[in-house]
């Protein structure tokens, strides 16, 4: 099953490689990984999307907790949470497609953030399936380039991940 694991980790050189090295060394699956400093610049917040049986996810969380630099680990998908991913997609926008691309962007509540005579860059945020759906709605021949950030997530309500 798909899990979203959130990690608070000391913002030190090599922190990312400790986490990614752990995943490869123990043959854990990693679908996406995002990381950036938090409002407290001594801390990094990492969101990892992984999948596996309950036993595997339990091991992932235990092994992450074992890393000396890791302060806290939670499985966001255990309860109500919000997940978001940002995608930038550059599309060919000429002739009748120009109008169509604008329409697709509107339908998915995306924004066009760059315009040339022949291209648009559409910015879109949402959960993974929304981004997938948007891509599926565009004729693949018109997609010139896509870039996605991977998922970041946060618990709903009183669930707070903090030191």
């Amino acid at each position, binding site marked *: 099953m798909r899990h979203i694991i959130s990690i608070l980790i000391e913002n030190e050189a*090599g922190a990312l490689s400790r986490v990614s090295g752990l995943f490869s060394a123990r043959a854990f699956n990693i679908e996406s990984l995002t990381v950036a400093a938090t409002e407290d610049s001594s801390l990094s917040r990492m969101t990892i999307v992984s999948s596996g049986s309950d036993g595997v996810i339990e091991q992932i969380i235990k092994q992450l907790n074992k890393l000396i630099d*890791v302060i806290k680990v939670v499985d966001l998908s255990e309860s109500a949470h919000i997940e978001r991913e940002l995608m930038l997609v550059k599309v060919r926008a000429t002739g009748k497609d120009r109008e169509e691309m604008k329409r697709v962007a509107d339908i998915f509540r995306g924004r066009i953030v760059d315009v040339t005579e022949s291209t648009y860059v559409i910015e879109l945020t949402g959960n993974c399936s929304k981004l997938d759906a948007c891509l599926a709605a565009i004729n693949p021949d018109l997609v010139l380039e896509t870039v996605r950030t991977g998922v970041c997530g946060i618990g709903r309500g009183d669930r707070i991940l903090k030191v």
Partner: protein
Amino acid sequence: MQLTGAEIVVRCLQEEKVEYVFGYPGGSVLYIYDELFKQDKFKHVLVRHEQAAVHAADAYSRSSNKIGVCLVTSGPGVTNAVTGIATAYMDSIPIVIISGQVPTPYIGQDAFQECDTVGITRPCVKHNFLVKDVKELATTLKKAFYIAKTGRPGPVLVDIPKDVTMHKCDFEYPKSISMRSYNPVVKPHEGQVRKALQLLLGAKRPMIYAGGGVILSDASNQLTKLARTLGFPVTNTLMGLGGYPATDDQFVGMLGMHGTYEANMAMQHCDVLVAIGARFDDRVIGNPEHFGSVLRKIIHIDIDPSSISKRVDVDVPIVGHLPDVLGKLQALLEQSAERPDAKALAVWWKQINTWRARNSLKYKQGKELIMPQYVVEKLYEITGGEAFVTSDVGQHQMWAAQYYKFDKPRRWINSGGLGTMGVGLPYAMGVRFANPKATVACITGEASIQMNIQELSTARQFRLPIKVINLNNRYLGMVRQWQEMFHGNRYSESYVDALPDFVKLAESYGHVGMRIERPADVEPALREAFTTHKNDFVFMDFLTDQTANVYPMIAAGKGLSEMILAEEL
């Protein structure tokens, strides 16, 4: 007063009451070595290869429960040390490795003797640091010693660029350290301990399975007391030998791939199993599906939560420091009016004794060829079971584990997890430094010993009276055994040709060499080595039966009750 980084390193080691640093100098650590030269609070042991420095520091720790320290230079100094570090990591041994690094402005420039030390060692250390500022040096070293020894122990590496050892700053060694990201659980959850006790009291066929954690946490007294109060059978893993007295009646021997028949059968057929500082390793339980095919309740006590439910599902997990957990169990047991079901226990012991009667370790010593098992048995007799025994890796390691009965912890020193050939001799050195009066024997084979043979020189320099018991069968014995059993007798590259004359080799380093070829000479030769040559390093080259195999054996992927016994062949 301001100190240089190199002075700070030396002061920190003094503050940590380090007795010995095992190392090898080189360009990046020259300033540190210069400071070593100027002090005499701790001694430096110059090895002949960095791998041996780490092994010696590792064994120093294993045999004393102090932290082992080694010092190596950048680049090849570190890469040579990696096997030693990985060995210590797999067996959770607290050591601190200080490595030199090229000056900070050169990092990443492919400088001479540069390597990404933090990157290379990351997967085989508990933690590592690169110190880029001399102001962080003292705190980092303090953290390294703290992390190495607390929680589940392990090696910690501190990489220090050369310019950092030259820069100056004020020195103050922190008295204590606290890290928001590192607070290992020590105190067990009381409810879980109560649950465990209830399971133990209700058991009909109980079994205690104790591993290296008992040794590492110095919990053997608590384990022995608890096991005796309960009257339950005890087995030790390879890493746990000595954690429970081997000559005690309740001890059923080592379990696992080469464990005794009774230990493996009891492990498979028990109804309540308590695992203490052990991790259900593949060499211990064999096939986990086969192991799990029998219904039994499992209590698992360990300092490391990630060891629990990793390979085997457990019913009562308890995370904590073993002496605390076992002490708590004992206290609750003593308060309780309940005792285990004596009738059921008597039936269970009767069953175990039937298994024991198979005498799965028996072998025949004839008149012509020396059996390796016989050498170990005689060694046990002659040393009165009091020696510190190190081993290398292979058949001789298993025979040492099977036939030398360890009654005390920290006497049996071997590479269990990584299975590193070549540890035996440097291990013996480390043991002797930690225990300057101890009798130290290194049981090895002609292949393993050659992997760190250069340390004969270090042993000479420091006049270490180690006794090397070389079980020389002219084969990579364990490889040959597997080839015989599973690869149609095709002995691919397992014959050791062009062996040196070990007697002359030992003598060339100034040691005593002996060659023993006949069974009748085994005992007198051992006596001579351990009495006449008590204070000498003696290399005893025993020419042994080339066809001897280690039994019992569980083939890889098989279950605990699927042992191959010697008599069945």
